[in-house]
C-alpha cells in the first residue's frame, strides 16, 4: 500500500507535487483513493460500466461526513447515473468509481443496480430498444450537458 508521501514520486518527479493534468484523470491518484484495491476483488467481477447507481436518503444525509470522492459520488447520484457517467463527470478512473461505489453500497450510502447478464438476448428488451430508436427523428434539438 502506498503512503500519501510517496505519491509524488510515483510519476517520476520525486519531491514534486504530482501535477494533475487538465481534462484527464490523473494516473497515480486512483491507487491512493482506493487504497490499492482493484475493482471487482470482492465479487470477482467488476461492475458493468452501465451499472446504475443512486444515492440513498441515508447517503445524502451523511454527505457532510463523507470524504472527498465518496462525497462527490453520493452528491452526483441524486438521480440514477451509470458507473461510466460518474467516472466521466468526476474525472475519476472507471475502476476507482467501481471500487468506491461498492464501498458506498456497503456503507448504505448508495444503491447499486447491477444489470442482469441475460439482457442482451432478451427479445422484449431488444424490441423496445428498436421501437424506441425508430422514433428518433433525423434531426435533433439542442444537446443537454447532463440528464
Amino acid at each position, binding site marked *: 500500500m502506498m503512503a500519501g508521501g510517496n505519491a509524488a514520486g510515483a510519476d517520476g518527479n520525486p519531491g514534486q507535487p504530482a501535477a494533475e493534468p487538465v481534462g484527464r484523470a490523473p494516473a497515480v491518484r486512483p491507487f491512493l483513493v482506493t487504497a*490499492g484495491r*482493484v475493482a471487482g476483488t470482492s465479487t470477482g467481477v467488476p461492475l458493468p*460500466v*452501465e451499472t446504475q447507481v443512486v444515492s440513498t436518503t441515508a447517503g445524502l444525509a451523511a454527505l457532510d461526513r463523507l470524504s472527498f470522492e465518496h462525497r462527490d459520488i453520493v452528491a452526483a447520484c*441524486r438521480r440514477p447515473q451509470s458507473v*461510466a457517467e460518474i467516472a466521466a463527470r468526476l474525472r475519476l*478512473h472507471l475502476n476507482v468509481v467501481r471500487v468506491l461505489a461498492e464501498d458506498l453500497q456497503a456503507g448504505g450510502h448508495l444503491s447499486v*443496480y447491477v444489470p442482469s447478464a441475460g439482457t*442482451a438476448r432478451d427479445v422484449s428488451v431488444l424490441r423496445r430498444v428498436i421501437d424506441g430508436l425508430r422514433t*428518433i427523428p433525423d434531426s435533433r434539438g439542442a444537446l443537454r450537458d447532463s440528464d
Partner: protein
Amino acid sequence: MTATEGARGRAPAAGRGAPPLPVKMVVAGGFGVGKTTAVGAISEIRPLTTEAAITEVAAGVDDLSHTPGKTTTTVAMDFGCITIDPSLKLYLFGTPGQERFGFMWDDLVQGALGGLVIVDTRRLDDCYAAVDYFEHRQIPFAVAVNAFDGRVEHELDDVRWALDVAEHVPVITFDARERGSVRDALLVVLELALARAEN
C-alpha cells in the same frame, strides 16, 4: 422525448423510484474514423469522455503499488446515452480500435447488445482488430463505412472482401454526423441481435 425528460426531471431524489434498465452498444473503430462524432450525433447528452484503463499489466493484479517501469495507459472512451423510455436507457460507448486495447473491450463489451465498427475506407486495416474481436466473441455487429464528404472510396463489396467479414455481417455506409444515419446503423445491429435472440 421532451415529455420523458420533463418527467425524469421531477423524479424524486434519494433513491426512490428504480433507475432505468441500462443496455449498451459499443462503437469501435480506428483513430479518427468518426466514433466521437457518431456518438455525439445521436446521444441526448453531450458525449463525455472516461479514462478507461489504469495500467495494462495491472488488470487483475492485487498489488497496485506503482512499480517503476509499469506502463500506465489511459484510454479515452466516449460515452453517450439515449432514453428509450423512463425504464430503459441505451448507453453508447465509443472505444478505440487497436489490438492492444482488447483488455478493455472485454470489460466494456460484456453484456453489450451489439457493436458498430466504423471504418474509414482510406485506412481499412485500422478496423481489423475490432472486426476480429466482435466476430470471435459472437457479438452482433455491423461494419459501417463512414462516408467522409459523402464519398466512399471503395465499393461496399470491396470493403467486405478486404475485411473478409462473414456473409451474415452487414456492411453499410453511413454518415457519422447525421443523427438519422447513426440511428439507422444502430438499428441494423439491433435487428441482427433480435434475430439471434429469437432463435
